[in-house]
């Protein structure tokens, strides 16, 4: 175990491990979700227009979001693992190896930042949360976009560069307790085909004989033996997001599809238990790029804005903008509120904070390097903000999907039996614990980054970042202490 120092291989779990590693492992997870997605679309387009009675709104906005953050915290990126939108890649492999590579200039996270921005903006502007039909069309759009990009490019460009759900999961699976790794790095060094990334799929059967090392009990090797490596239509495509198993240090970009595990002819790649959030403490696990750092920081700010969209002050702010700035309709106001809160503010705050940190610590590092060092510290606090928000919606009606489903099937919904909910006060307490916990975790990460980067001047260099993290946490705490309102925003204009 090169990077993980973990001996616990999740895929060695009896039965489940075998199923997951098997050729159809991903499809077994995907098919139920595809069927479910089709059900949502049908209900969204033909069912009741009331959001609280329609699967298309209840399932994604209450249950998906609540469960996805829980899964990220406790297990890993389980949604991407079972993602229904990527079924074409699993089924029609020939489709996925034609085409070109995604344009080089776009191989970064800028589009992903914009698509997250767009999703949260549309959510607020179109009141997706209150509209089954629009949510259904959003699901259709995901299928189309994923299919088109899967067919046009060799890699999974949609997952890696565009998909907002995937991007959210990539960023916050960095807190997860699992990660892809290899059992024996020496095997990888000797591996000829690197099938984990290149794939074992071929339209026609092809066989290659590799000389592979024979390992002694102590891990050394002084002999090799021939091994038949088989490429065939039954093989697996290599990693769709182009990760190389022996070098993986982070869950970023990993969809947990396990294709690397299936493709490796030496049974060397697997999914391992690791210390939760391990990569956040390792300075080398993330590339020092602006797009990546800003993605993580913006996503934390987006968590605040998204929650702000649900409390009374946003209505006051909009009313004020109408009165004093003469706005005539909602679109430009939301563009400004979201543009400032989700893009401009994090950008400006980051540059100022990194600049101050550089000056205070009298450091030779560039602003980009400093930002990259502190960006991982925005993961726990950002995750806590999203977790607090999504679990709120989930916990006030955790079983509501059952009666809605009963009604979908034409029965009468047994609401009395499924009306269980967690007390609002308990949820409030949970939110507070989560936010403070996330903040403290962030502070530990920021402090380590400061010591690593600035050594003796760690404290002054840490100060601006600590302040920014504190402000984020306090803003979120403040918002969650207000009563949430579930209303459309259109009322302002009648």
């Amino acid at each position, binding site marked *: 175990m090169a990077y993980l120092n973990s001996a616990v291989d999740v895929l060695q779990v009896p039965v489940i491990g075998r199923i997951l590693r098997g050729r159809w492992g991903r499809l077994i997870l995907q098919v139920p979700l*595809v*069927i479910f997605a*089709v*059900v949502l679309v*049908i*209900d969204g387009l*033909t*069912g*009741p227009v*009331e*959001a*609280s*009675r*329609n699967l298309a*709104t*209840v399932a994604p*906005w*209450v249950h998906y979001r609540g469960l996805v953050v829980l899964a990220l915290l406790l297990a890993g990126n389980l949604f991407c693992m079972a993602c229904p939108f990527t079924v074409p890649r699993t*089924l029609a492999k020939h489709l996925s190896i034609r085409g070109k590579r995604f344009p080089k200039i776009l191989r970064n996270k800028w589009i992903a930042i914009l698509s997250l921005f767009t999703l949260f903006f549309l959510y607020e502007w179109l*009141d997706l*949360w*209150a509209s089954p039909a629009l949510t259904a069309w959003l699901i259709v759009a995901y299928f189309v976009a994923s299919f088109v990009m899967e067919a046009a490019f060799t890699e999974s460009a949609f997952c890696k560069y565009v998909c907002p759900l995937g991007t959210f999961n990539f960023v916050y699976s960095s807190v997860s307790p699992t990660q892809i790794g290899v059992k024996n790095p020496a095997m990888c060094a000797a591996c000829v085909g690197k099938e984990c990334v290149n794939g074992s799929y071929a339209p026609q059967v092809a066989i290659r004989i590799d000389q592979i090392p024979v390992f002694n009990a102590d891990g050394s090797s002084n002999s090799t033996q021939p091994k038949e490596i088989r490429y065939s239509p039954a093989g697996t495509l290599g990693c769709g997001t182009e990760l190389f198993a022996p070098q993986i240090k982070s869950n970023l970009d990993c969809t947990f599809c396990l294709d690397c595990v299936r493709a490796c002819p030496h049974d060397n790649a697997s999914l391992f238990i690791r210390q939760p959030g391990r990569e956040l403490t390792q300075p080398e696990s993330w590339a020092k790029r602006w797009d990546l750092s800003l993605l993580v920081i913006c996503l934390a700010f987006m968590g605040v804005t998204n929650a702000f969209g649900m409390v*009374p002050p946003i209505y006051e702010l909009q009313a004020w903008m109408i009165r004093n700035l003469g706005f005539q309709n909602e679109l430009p106001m939301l563009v400004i509120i979201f543009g400032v809160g989700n893009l401009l503010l994090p950008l400006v705050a980051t540059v100022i904070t990194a600049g101050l940190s550089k000056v205070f610590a009298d450091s030779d590092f560039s602003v980009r390097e400093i930002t990259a060092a502190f960006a991982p510290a925005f993961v726990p606090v950002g995750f806590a903000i999203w977790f607090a928000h999504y679990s709120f*919606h*989930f916990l*006030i*009606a955790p079983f*509501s999907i059952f009666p809605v489903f009963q*009604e*979908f*099937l*034409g029965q009468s919904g047994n*609401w*009395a039996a*499924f*009306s269980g*909910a967690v007390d609002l006060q308990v949820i409030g307490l949970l939110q507070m614990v989560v936010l403070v916990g996330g903040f403290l975790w962030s502070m530990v990460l920021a402090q380590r980054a400061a010591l690593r980067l600035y050594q003796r001047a760690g404290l002054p260099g840490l100060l601006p970042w600590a302040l920014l993290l504190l402000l984020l946490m306090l803003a979120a705490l403040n918002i969650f202490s207000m*009563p*949430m*309102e*579930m*209303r*459309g925003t259109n*009322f302002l204009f009648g």
Partner: protein
Amino acid sequence: MLLRLFMLMLIGLMAAGCRQDAPATDNPNIQIELIVNSERIVVGETLLFVQVYDAEDNLIDGAKVNIRGDMSHAGMTPVIRDIETGRDGQYETSFEWTMAGDWFIDVTVTLPDGTQDKERFEYVVGVP
């Protein structure tokens, strides 16, 4: 093969997704009024009054009244009340506005002779 199976499933689902339409539609012979017992509607317990009239504006007694309050946003359990007894055409029930925001209340009235009427009322519920 898989594709065909999938199409089959799809058709099956289309057929299964046959939600029954609400039995009651607007009935011109019945009028429903919903009265909310407070000036400003805020989160918390309250009383709701329903009055049922016939075409000649006479109050109707002995109807079954069902009240279902939903929020216009996904993810709130509806508040459902059944009122069996009413006096002088007045039907009263306790009701809880469980969350601030946009609500709509569907009142379904079933007369002793089985005729039905359904009416929707919308409210904005504020914080106390």
